[in-house]
C-alpha cells in the first residue's frame, strides 16, 4: 500500500507491505515516517470535528470535536450519532455534548461557548 507521510512537509511516498515479521516499510526518510506508516496500517485514528444546531442561543451552530482521536473506520458512524441533535443554550466550551460515542469512551465536546439569546 502507498501512503503519503504527513509528519513533515517532505511528504514522503511510503510503500508498506505486511510480511512475516511485521511490516516492510520503504520510501520513508526518517523513523517517524516508519512509525506513521505502521500506525496507518494497524490502527489509524483521526480527530473528528463537526457542528450541531443550537436552540435559544445567540448563535445558530455549535462546533464540536472528539476529545480524543477515534478509529478512522468509525468516523461516519460517529458523525451519524449527531444527526438530529439540538443543544439548548447556554453552552460552555468543553461541555460534553455526546458522551461515550459508539461505546469508544470518546466524547464529542463543545469547542465554543454560546450564550442564551
Amino acid at each position, binding site marked *: 500500500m502507498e*501512503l*503519503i*507521510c*504527513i509528519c513533515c*512537509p*517532505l*511528504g514522503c511516498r511510503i510503500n508498506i507491505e505486511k510480511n512475516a515479521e511485521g511490516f516492510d516499510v520503504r520510501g520513508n*526518510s526518517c523513523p517517524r515516517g516508519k512509525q506513521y506508516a505502521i500506525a496507518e496500517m494497524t490502527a489509524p485514528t*483521526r*480527530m*473528528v*470535528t*463537526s*457542528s450541531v*444546531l443550537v436552540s435559544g442561543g445567540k*448563535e*445558530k*451552530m455549535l*462546533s*464540536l*470535536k472528539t476529545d480524543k482521536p477515534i478509529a*478512522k473506520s468509525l*468516523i461516519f458512524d460517529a*458523525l451519524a450519532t449527531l444527526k438530529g441533535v439540538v443543544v439548548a443554550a447556554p453552552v460552555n*466550551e468543553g461541555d460534553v455534548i455526546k458522551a461515550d460515542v459508539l461505546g469508544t469512551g470518546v466524547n464529542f465536546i463543545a*469547542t*465554543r*461557548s454560546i450564550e442564551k439569546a
Partner: protein
Amino acid sequence: MDKRNVVIIGGGPAGLAAAIGAYEAGERDILILEREPKLGGILNQCIHNGFGLHTFKEELTGPEYANRFIRKVKELGIEYKLETTVISFDKNKVITAVNEKDGLIKIQAKAVVLCCGCRERPRGGINIAGCRSAGIYSAGTAQKLVNIEGYMPGKEIVILGSGDIGLIMARRMTFEGAKVKACVELMPYSSGLNRNIVQCLKDFDIPLLFSHTVVDIKGEGRVKSVVIAEVDEKLVPKMETAREITCDTLLLSVGLIPENELAKQAGVELSPVTNGATVDDRMMTNLDGVFECGNVLHVHDLVDFVSEESELAGKCAAKYVIGGGFEADGGTKVETYGGVRYCVPQIIEHNDDYEPFPLKMRVSNVFRNVYLRVYADGQLVAQKKKQISTPGEMETISLKAEQVEALRKAKEIKVGLEENK
C-alpha cells in the same frame, strides 16, 4: 475627536495578539475596532483542528484557539468595539469608523496597527468562462454557510484550487453528506498543507487532479456541470482533454488577497509580490507610526505565526508611543534572489534596541535539497537546509542576537535559495 494611543484595526488573530503585545510592552491605552459582532475573526468559522501546535503545543480547533486570546484580552481589560467598521484612515492617523451605538466616530491615534486580514480571490479574479448560475461559492463562504449558518450550499461538489480552505471544505462537505467529486488544481503541485491533502482528500478517496482547470460552467439558474481540462506547461488548457463533471456546486479555493483598502487610502506603500505593506523589522510601514501584521501583511499558512508576528507588531507600536516615536535611520533593504519570492521584513533598521525578529519568506517553485541563505555585506550570516521547500509552506529563519546585530550593521542584505552542492 477621541484621542487614543494604540488603535488596532481588526479583532481577528492578528489584532488580538497585537493588543496583547502592546499591553505587555507597557501600553494601557489600547482600542481594538472589529466589524463583526464578535472577536476572533475567521477562526470562528474554522471549526477543524490543527491550530496552536507551535504556540500551545496542543491541537486546538479555530474557535478554541481564538478564545485563548479573547480571554486574555478580556482579562487584561483591553477595550474593544464590535460591529464597528473603519471607513477611512489617513496618514495623520485619524480613523473614521461607524457603528450603530456611537454613530460616526473619529479617533486621533498615536500608533495604528493594521490587522485587517485577507479575503478570498473571487470567480471574477480568475476569469472562468461559463454561466453565471447559482451554486458558485468561494470555499470560505461555503465554510461560513455550513459552520456558522447551518446551511448546506450543495450536494455534488467540485472544488477548483487546492488551497487549505478548499481541502478543509472537501472533508467538511463530505461529513455533512455531500459528494465531493474532484479537487482540480491548475499547478502541478498543491498550495495546501500535506496533512490536509491526506486527511481531507485521500481519506475519502476524493481525486486531486494536478495541472487541470475548470474551462466552463454549465447550467441555467443553478450549476449543472463543470467542464475541466488538463493544462500544458504554460498553464493553457488542452481542450482535447476536456471532460464534463455533473455537479450542483463549484467551490473556489484559488488564493487569498490581503485586504489593504484602508492602507492604500492612507498612502501605505504596498509590495507587488505580497500585496501587503512593505515593513521594517518593527513591522512599521512607510508611514510613521502605522504598523501592519498578520494576513493583511502577507498570507500565512499557520495562525501560530500570525500571532507571533502580531505580538511583535503590537510591542513595537507600544514602544513607539512610549518612546515618543522612532528615530528614522532608513535601514537596509532586504534583497531576495534565486527562487525566494519575498522576505518579510523588507527593511532592517540599523538601530539595535528593537525587538528580535525572524525572517519569513516564500519560494516560487518546488525545490529539493537546497539552502536558504542570508548574507550581510557578502558574509553568510544564517542558513537553513531544506530537503524540500514549496510555495505552499512559508519558510522562517529564526535569528540569534548576534545574527540580528550583523544584519543591523549591514549595508547590503541578501536572502536567497542555493542548491546544495
